[in-house]
């Protein structure tokens, strides 16, 4: 676990949600530390949104507990909702109102005073770069602008935890990069971010840790490197392009290297459980070879995801029938 017990802002214990006899969230356990960016991954319908709604007290908890900032959302929902910002999946705004009016309404619901409201709204809109359309009706906004407006709402709230449900689905690449940049800024300010997505590449880009959901359960959890080790067997893939005598044996002798594949006479692919580039460079130099290229493939979440589901599909289907 990344933090000590006092740093834990969200703690779920055996959290369960049952709809008509089916556990859509099934005994889920996780701890999220303050300042962490945590990714909820998984196919649609795996229970990510339901888990989020339970954390906000917006849907009843069937079993287990969840504590958000030390409060039970089922008993003290207002305490939780005062400090947690939520950007729902495909967020909607009142189209006939302007951006400022929309934010003014929700900030009134937050209980902010009028002077404070105006100040925070202006600042938040500037942060998400919507100042110049602040007085335009939201009806004219693109999807990316709406998502940014939703983020502005979280900024107005000065939330300690930001929960973003599928924030980038349906955005064009440019808007996605812009949005993830804003998420990065939030994180830099010490806001704990919980991001749910099925777009793996983005999650990998911004999250410290991820939890992989499958039919209501967390099947994998940890940092991307951890997961790569668990699922792919090795965390790093290093490619070496160099010439020299019997390089493959020298490379294989480096501690931590689990395999060396010879791609061509002068190209080798090594798998290792750590970043072995410095050792590889030394090995090439020791062999009096000339090093032309040394590259590392970060373990990709996509590969982990694909491999995991490949090897577990049969097994989980069996489990589902048994249940």
């Amino acid at each position, binding site marked *: 676990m990344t933090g000590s017990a006092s740093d834990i802002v969200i703690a779920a214990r055996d959290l369960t949600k049952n709809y008509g006899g089916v556990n859509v969230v099934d005994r889920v356990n996780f701890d999220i530390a303050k300042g962490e960016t945590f990714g909820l991954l998984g196919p649609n319908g795996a229970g990510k949104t339901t888990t989020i709604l339970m954390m906000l007290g917006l849907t009843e908890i069937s079993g287990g507990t969840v504590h958000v900032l030390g409060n039970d959302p089922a008993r003290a929902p207002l305490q939780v909702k005062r400090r947690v910002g939520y950007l729902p999946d495909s967020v909607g705004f009142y189209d006939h109102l302007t951006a400022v009016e929309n934010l003014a309404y929700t900030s009134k619901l*937050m209980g902010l005073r009028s002077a404070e409201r105006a100040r925070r709204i202006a600042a938040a809109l500037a942060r998400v770069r919507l100042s110049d359309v602040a007085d335009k009706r939201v009806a004219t906004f693109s999807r990316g602008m709406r998502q940014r407006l939703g983020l502005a709402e979280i900024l107005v709230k000065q939330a300690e935890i930001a929960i973003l449900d599928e924030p980038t689905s349906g955005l064009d690449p440019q808007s996605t990069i812009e949005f993830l940049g804003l998420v990065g800024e939030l994180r830099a300010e010490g806001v704990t971010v919980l991001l749910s997505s099925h777009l793996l590449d983005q999650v990998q880009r911004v999250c410290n840790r991820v939890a992989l959901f499958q039919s209501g359960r967390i099947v994998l959890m940890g940092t991307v490197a951890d997961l790569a080790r668990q699922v792919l067997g090795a965390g790093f893939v290093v490619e070496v392009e160099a010439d020299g005598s019997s390089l493959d044996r020298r490379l294989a002798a480096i501690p931590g290297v689990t395999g060396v594949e010879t791609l061509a006479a002068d190209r080798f692919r090594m798998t290792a459980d750590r970043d072995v580039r410095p050792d590889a460079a030394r090995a090439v130099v020791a062999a009096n070879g000339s090093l032309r290229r040394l590259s590392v493939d970060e373990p990709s979440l996509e590969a982990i995801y694909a491999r995991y589901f490949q090897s577990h599909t049969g097994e989980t289907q069996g489990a589902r029938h048994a249940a």
Partner: protein
Amino acid sequence: MRREGSPFQGVGAVAVKELADNLSSARMFVLEWLIVLTALAALYSAIDSLRQTTAQDPFLLLRLFTVNRAPLPSFVAILGFLIPLMAIGLGFDAINGEHNRRTLSRILAQPIYRDALLMGKFLAGLVTLAMSLAALWLMVIGLGLIFLGVPPGGEEVARSLAFLVIAVFYAGVWLALAMLLSIVFRSAATAALVALGIWLFLTVLWPMLAPAIAQVIAPPDPRYAMLGLESPDTAVWTQMLSRISPNHLFSEAMVAVLSPTTRTLGPVFIEQLRGAVMGSPLPLSQSLIIVWPQTVGLIAGTIVLFVAGYVVFQRQEVRA
């Protein structure tokens, strides 16, 4: 177990926002003009017939509300018909509209309870209706002053105010019904159709069905039929059944409040009339006693429908 914080937190903010939406919406504009124009037509014919016929009447102003001349119904009858339409128009997409715009989960993620959203919307709707009805009421009084030239007396104003209050509660029943349907049905179009169906059933079909059902429950006595009279049992059943419709309660209440000579709303027996001076008006307090059950019925209907909507809404899932 008590929940933390007040369920009313945020009601004000919701109500103010919804009120502004209601007042500026095109839908409201259309409904307002529909009612104003129909009411003007009814008033015009009422004024016209009052000018020609009535010389001596202590309640000239109240006649404006109730007098009708074919083919137009009276002002009150038109209101009884159109107030539900207006209330349904305001309420049929109250909650499912938030669902469909995907604003519901965002709003409920703010530190308020669901109560606040529902109550704020209901209050805003009721205030909107009250404002429109008050405007209509002022219009009637104003037109009365201009065209009849008789200043209203204190009792007339008091009676017409009673009319206003009862009309607001009558609107409340339909608003609560429309909001209940907006919670039950996810599609706004379905909710609107069901609400309009209920409205047509209760205002048009039920007045025809009620006597028929009453005759089945209490078949007419041939002895009364021979005399060309209605059997008391059948008449009582007809009235009881008719009162299921809020429309009937409203029109009964209007008769008693706006026609001061009304002594009872049900069948009358001879012994009940002993000592009564026929045709003389009742004091306001007595008229209010007569309409009290109808008024309470309308208030109770509003509360029951609102509570039903509240219960359904509390248990509903917010995710779209």
